[in-house]
C-alpha cells in the first residue's frame, strides 16, 4: 500500500460551499481516480501533494505520514518529493524546455543557465524525444511536447510518486494513445507509482489496475 488517505475538507469559494470527503487505499502501482469534473479529484490530488491542507484526517505514503490532523503534522510540498503534473502543465513560460526540466535539480536563487547540460536532464529529454526542442520556450512547442516536458520535469527529480491531473485531456486522440504508451513504459522502467485523475474511460483501461470512483466530493467503494 503506497498511499493511504482519509481526509475531510470544507472549502468556500464565491459563496459556494464544497465538502471533500475522500478515502483512498492505493494497493496497485497504477491507480485512476475517476469521475466527472467538479467531483473533487483535483483537490484530492492537491492534498496528497501538500498544496491543500485538509481540515481533518491523515495521509501516508509508503508508510510515512505526510499529513496528520490530530498530530498537527503537515509536510510542505517541498518536503514530500512528489511529482505533480498539472492539467495545463504549468510550465515556466520564461524558461526553455531544458531549463524547465532542470528546474528542480538546481537549488539556490538562480535558474539553471540556458546552456546548462545536466546528464539526468539530457536523459529525460531523450526519453521523451524533446531534446531537439530543448532550447525553445513552452509557447513555441506543440501540446504533446509540452506534456512531455511537464512529465520530464516531474520525473527528473526522482519523485516517490507521480500525480497526474487529466494529463491527456488537452491532446488529440492519436497523440493521446501514443503518450499513454510512452508513459506506461516509463513507469514500467522506473517503478514509480502513479495516481492519475481522469474522466476518460481509455485512461481507465490502460492505467486502471485499481479504479476509485469519485462524485460530489466523495470517493466511493
Amino acid at each position: 500500500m503506497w498511499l493511504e488517505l482519509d481526509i475531510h475538507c470544507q472549502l468556500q469559494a464565491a459563496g459556494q460551499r464544497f465538502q471533500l470527503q475522500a478515502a483512498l487505499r492505493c494497493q496497485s502501482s497504477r491507480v485512476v481516480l475517476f469521475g466527472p469534473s467538479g467531483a473533487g479529484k483535483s483537490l484530492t490530488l492537491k492534498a496528497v501533494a501538500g498544496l491543500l491542507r485538509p481540515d481533518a484526517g491523515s495521509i501516508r505514503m509508503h508508510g510515512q505520514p505526510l499529513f496528520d490532523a490530530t498530530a498537527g503534522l503537515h509536510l510542505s510540498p517541498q518536503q514530500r518529493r512528489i511529482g505533480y503534473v498539472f492539467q495545463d502543465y504549468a510550465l515556466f513560460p520564461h524558461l526553455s524546455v531544458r531549463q524547465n526540466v532542470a528546474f528542480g535539480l538546481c537549488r539556490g536563487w538562480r535558474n539553471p543557465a540556458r546552456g546548462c547540460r545536466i546528464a539526468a536532464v539530457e536523459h529525460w529529454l531523450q526519453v521523451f524525444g524533446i531534446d531537439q526542442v530543448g532550447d525553445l520556450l513552452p509557447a513555441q512547442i506543440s501540446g504533446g511536447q509540452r506534456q512531455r516536458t511537464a512529465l520530464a520535469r516531474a520525473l527528473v527529480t526522482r519523485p516517490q510518486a507521480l500525480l497526474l491531473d487529466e494529463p491527456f485531456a488537452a491532446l488529440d486522440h492519436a497523440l493521446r494513445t501514443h503518450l499513454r504508451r510512452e508513459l506506461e513504459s516509463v513507469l514500467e522502467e522506473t517503478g514509480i507509482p502513479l495516481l492519475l485523475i481522469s474522466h476518460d474511460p481509455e485512461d481507465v483501461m490502460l492505467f486502471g489496475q485499481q479504479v476509485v470512483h469519485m462524485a460530489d466530493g466523495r470517493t466511493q467503494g
Partner: protein
Amino acid sequence: MLDLDWSALWLSLKVAGCATAINLVLGIALGGLLARRRFPGRELLDTLLTLPMILPPTVLGYYLLVLIGSNGPLGAWLQRGFGINLVFTWQAAVIAAAVASLPLVFKPARAAFEGVDGQLEQAARTLGMSEPALFFRVTLPLAWRGILAGLLLAFARAMGEFGATIMVAGSIPGRTQTLSIAIYEAVQAGNDGRANLLVLVSSAVCIGVLLVAARLVGRSSGDARNVA
C-alpha cells in the same frame, strides 16, 4: 552660472535615483505583500499608500514635515539618538520624492504579481523549491516587466517632485535646490534666460527617461518572444 544649473540637474538625478532605489525594494515588497497575502486592512493599506498620488503635494509635504521635523516623532528620535536633522537636507528631498512616487511602483507591482499564475508557484513548490527561491526564479521574472515600467515612471515623477520637496528640503542652491525648484526660483526672480535653459534641460531628461522606458519594456518583451 552654468555650474549652478548643472548642480541642480545633478541633484535632481541624485534625489530621483535614490528615491527610485528605495522604491525598488519597498514597492516590490509592498506589491508582493498586497498581491499574495490576505490580512485585515489590506485594501486600507493600499488606499493609504496611494494617497500621496492624490493629495495636494503641499499636504503631503506638511505631513512629512510633521513626521520628520525636530518636534515630530521620527525627527525627534533621529535627533536624540543619532544627532541627525533631516529637514532642509537633500535626504529630506529623497524622502519626499520616494513617498510621492511610491504608488507608481507598488500599484503596477501588485498588478504584475497578481497576474502571475499561482499554479506556476505551486509547480515550483512540488519541485522542492523554497519560497524565496521560487520568488526570485519564477514570480519576479514573470512580474518584472510591469515593475520596471512602474519604476521608470516613478523616476520621472521623482525628478519632477516640487511641492512636498520645497516644504521639507527648502530651496538651498547647490544643496537642496532641485531642477524643478530652480525653475520656480528663476521665474520668480524674472531670470527668463535661466528659466528657459532649465526648462529645456528638464524636458530633455524626461523625454530621455520615457524613451529608455519604452525601449526597455519593448526589448524585454521582444526577448521573451525570440530567445530561440
